[in-house]
């Protein structure tokens, strides 16, 4: 009895000592974006009891992968609603896997939106367009939440920029997100260039776009790609840049 009491007292003292260390380590984990998943009733309802138990037992990645396979089957059967639900579960379970966010957004904004637009069962164009825009918004939502969970990775910024460019025709936002991607470590070399390209389509920001494109052009032959030269020449014409300051007509494509 005395022993047990001594041990309990020792546990209390040790507990008091270890708590700051544990909370410090937990803070470090959060900083490194570990423990991104909250195991609560909401998740339990989403993934079902078995899935929840599996996830709680350290099989979170495996449950997410199994759901990803199910989502692929749902895609084969063009069950867009089911796919949306599955991808929500998958991204909840594995918020640090970029593939899941990117694929979810691609399915919603590209595949489901096109399917909605070509839906033969809906004769009214206005409703088809409305559904299409809802799928764009779902794709955007996946990417925005993905970025929130992975602010240090450039890939999702790129994907969001692509979505703004191709689906919303919003070149300003596309340029912003390409620039954000370019500022992150590990970004693709084309991000900076693409940001300038997109800016060159924005009305009223031609001067800024010209300066950025010119800066890239002056950075060296490796940046002098056909699209860059084409956009630069268009802007030179538009801004009436003096002839002597323009890039050469010939030989500009030389590397």
């Amino acid at each position: 009895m005395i022993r047990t009491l001594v041990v309990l007292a020792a546990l209390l003292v040790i507990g008091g000592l270890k708590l700051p260390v544990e909370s410090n380590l937990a803070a470090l984990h959060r900083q490194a974006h570990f423990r991104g998943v909250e195991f609560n009733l909401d998740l339990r309802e989403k993934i079902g009891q078995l899935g929840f138990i599996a996830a709680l037992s350290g099989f979170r990645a495996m449950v997410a992968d199994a759901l990803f396979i199910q989502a692929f089957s749902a895609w084969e059967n063009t069950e867009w609603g089911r796919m949306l639900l599955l991808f929500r579960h998958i991204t909840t379970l594995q918020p640090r896997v970029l593939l899941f966010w990117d694929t979810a957004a691609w399915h919603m904004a590209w595949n489901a939106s096109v399917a909605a637009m070509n839906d033969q069962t809906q004769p009214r164009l206005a409703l088809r367009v409305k559904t299409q825009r809802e799928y764009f918004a779902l794709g955007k939502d996946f990417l925005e939440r993905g970025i929130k969970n992975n602010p240090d990775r450039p890939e999702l910024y790129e994907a969001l920029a692509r979505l703004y460019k191709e689906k919303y025709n919003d070149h300003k936002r596309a340029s912003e997100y390409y620039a954000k991607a370019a500022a992150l470590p590990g970004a693709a070399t084309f991000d900076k260039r693409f940001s300038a390209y997109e800016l060159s389509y924005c009305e009223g920001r031609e001067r800024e776009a010209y300066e950025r494109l010119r800066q890239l052009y002056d950075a060296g032959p490796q940046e002098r790609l056909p699209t860059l030269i084409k956009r630069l020449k268009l802007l030179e014409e538009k801004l009436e840049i003096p002839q002597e300051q323009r890039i050469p007509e010939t030989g500009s494509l030389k590397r």
Partner: protein
Amino acid sequence: MVALFFPDLQAFNLVDDIVAGTAISLAVFAKTALLGVFYTVIYTLLAAFVFYGKEL
């Protein structure tokens, strides 16, 4: 109270993040390993103290 008496084993559950490609820094690795050693030593000693001399 539970946190006072029991070790936080979630600190060692990093496999899902590693699968996702998250790199573990040396500081996190060292602290987690030290915490593991600390738990092992303390709880083993306490268990030995409780059960020492008892017929099991």
